[in-house]
């Protein structure tokens, strides 16, 4: 590519700090940022380390963690899913329809899979840019959600509410959710052939050789489609969690969630050009955002500066990751 020069070999430490040469991307620096915020809060405030606050932190972070993990599947193959926010709102609206839980709960995942499949189909088979395809889906799904439920209301099935509150064997339910989701995502991304193929496909796309993975026998289009399905299903999972927390259906609960999810993924060191990223990075990225909002509440800092700090961290972390390719 124009302008790229051969760089001298760097030390391992500087590689760790900048994420250069790493398939996992820049996750170390975000971890330091998260640790620094947590350390700062624990000495500045007495409430931060209190069990109730840590519980709140996990419960508040969980929808973002789940959505960001889903988003990562798509980002790794060089895509982007702007429809996850609408999927979340849609899920809460379906759950609050008043139908029996053994119908609505499987239904939300089936519908989310359908949304993901449509996104994936349009992107891979009809050759539409992911930003455009998922943006259109965002509008359509938001419209349907608002038709179903113009304002928030209704009640979600009892089992959904019980699944996010209280605790089992002394483990609070949100923490349990986190453990299960992370284990599931780890299995899919780092412990299966599917995940390996996603990284291979994304690496090829980032290097400008889109056929690379296919030439090695990976059925790339089907795998990319499945990545979109996974993304939508994780978003639906976040929607179920949120529905349990707010106990009703809300057409606006997922608004702009996609931007937060992308922010978390990017802060966690996953590159939007594809092929580079890690699950722990994404979780750390979501935690940084959650710690920021939690810390601002505890230290009574104006909540309005929080947005600016969030943007600055995003710009800083992403600015450190130089790529060869110019563009999206």
């Amino acid at each position, binding site marked *: *590519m*124009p*302008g790229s020069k051969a760089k001298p070999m760097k030390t391992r430490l500087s590689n760790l700090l900048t994420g250069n040469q790493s398939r996992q991307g820049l996750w170390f620096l975000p971890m330091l940022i998260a640790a620094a915020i947590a350390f700062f809060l624990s000495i500045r405030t007495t409430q931060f380390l209190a069990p109730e606050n840590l519980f709140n932190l996990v419960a508040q972070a969980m929808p973002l963690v789940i959505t960001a993990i889903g988003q990562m599947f798509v980002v790794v193959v060089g895509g*982007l899913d702007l429809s996850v926010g609408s999927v979340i709102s849609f899920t809460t609206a379906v759950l609050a329809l008043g139908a029996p839980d053994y119908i609505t709960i499987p239904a939300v995942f089936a519908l989310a899979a359908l949304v993901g499949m449509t996104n994936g189909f*349009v992107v891979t088979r*009809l*050759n*539409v*840019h992911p*930003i*455009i*395809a998922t*943006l*259109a*889906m*965002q*509008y*359509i*799904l*938001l*419209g*349907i*959600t*608002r*038709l179903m439920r*113009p304002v928030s209301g209704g009640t979600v099935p009892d089992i959904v509410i019980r699944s996010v509150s209280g605790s089992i064997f002394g483990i609070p339910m949100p923490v349990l959710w986190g453990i299960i989701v992370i284990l599931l995502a780890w299995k899919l991304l780092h412990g299966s052939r599917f995940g390996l193929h996603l990284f291979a496909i994304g690496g090829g796309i980032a290097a400008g050789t889109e056929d690379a993975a296919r030439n090695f026998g990976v059925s790339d289009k089907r795998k990319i489609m499945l990545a979109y399905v996974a993304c939508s299903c994780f978003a639906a999972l976040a929607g179920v969690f949120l529905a349990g927390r707010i106990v009703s259906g809300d057409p606006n609960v997922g608004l702009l969630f996609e*931007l937060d999810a*992308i*922010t978390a993924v*990017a802060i966690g060191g996953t*590159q*939007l*050009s594809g092929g580079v990223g890690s699950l722990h990075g994404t979780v750390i990225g979501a935690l940084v955002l959650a710690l920021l909002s939690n810390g601002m509440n505890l230290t009574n800092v*104006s909540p*309005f*500066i*929080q*947005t*600016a*700090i*969030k*943007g*600055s961290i*995003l*710009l800083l972390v*992403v*600015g450190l*990751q*130089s*790529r*060869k*390719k*110019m*563009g*999206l």
Partner: protein
Amino acid sequence: MAALLNRPLAQRIVGIPPAYYVFAALLFVLWIARPNMLNVNVMGVFIRQVAPLGVLVLGQLLVMKVKSIDLSGGGIILLVNYFISSGIFAGASLAFFIALALAIGTFIGLFNGLMIAKRRVSAVITTLAVSIILVGFVQFLSSGKPPGDVPSIFGDIYNTKLGPVPTPVIFWFALTLAMAAFLSRTVFGRYVMSVGESAEAAHFSGVPVERTVILAHTLAGFIAGVAALVQTASIAVGSVRVGLDLPILAVAATILGGVVFGRGDGGVWGPFFGVLSFALLFVVMTAFGIGEPGKLIAQGLIILLAAVFYGVRTAKLK
């Protein structure tokens, strides 16, 4: 299907950006169902509403032609709107506000361009981060409360008409003309085309790729500053939410106009009609009494169909 698409006539027909079809179809629907709405006064009011979007689209199409994207326009509009309506520059002249808006836009565009072309940072993330920072900055300055009134001179200019046509519409049209001439008659316009086709080929042909991308983003920022002025003039009272959905709508209108990340077939007039289609869609939906959800669904379907239409075509060309 494939054989049919390879016919010269079929090629010609699919070569027309979808915006023209959508515009013609909506006009036809309106002509059949509500012919009384098709007069200059009614249409002028609706088209005036999309003038800020129309101006912003001119910048968006420029960066999308060089395979980039700019999502920071919303932040620029919000910041300019805040500066004008909050009264921190109380008593300043119109010229001062115009210079301020253009300077803010240009500076932010230049920053975007440097980050994207020199640092090679993802364009989506950079411009998204810049927008988040600007929105946060305005929220911080205003503590989330709506600022104040926009100086009345803005509204006075906005409400003038040249004959039957509102001034903002003429301004938008003139700016589009200028952009079309700029892209077709200058060396920079050629550079934009060649970078969009292939950055690598452009580089080896001696096109300053980085400089072209930086300049495209700087111009897009400048245009966002102009759009911010038009948007501010269109509302009498300042707001902390104004213009936030405009960048993504601008992307949608640009795609509808046939400019899809590097494929610049739609020129400048495709996106122009893309914006007009959105205005007309709004008229049609209002005329039939369809609410906001229906508008969202229709908008999404139109974007999707237009993009599919284009995607299938580019796949055949490969």
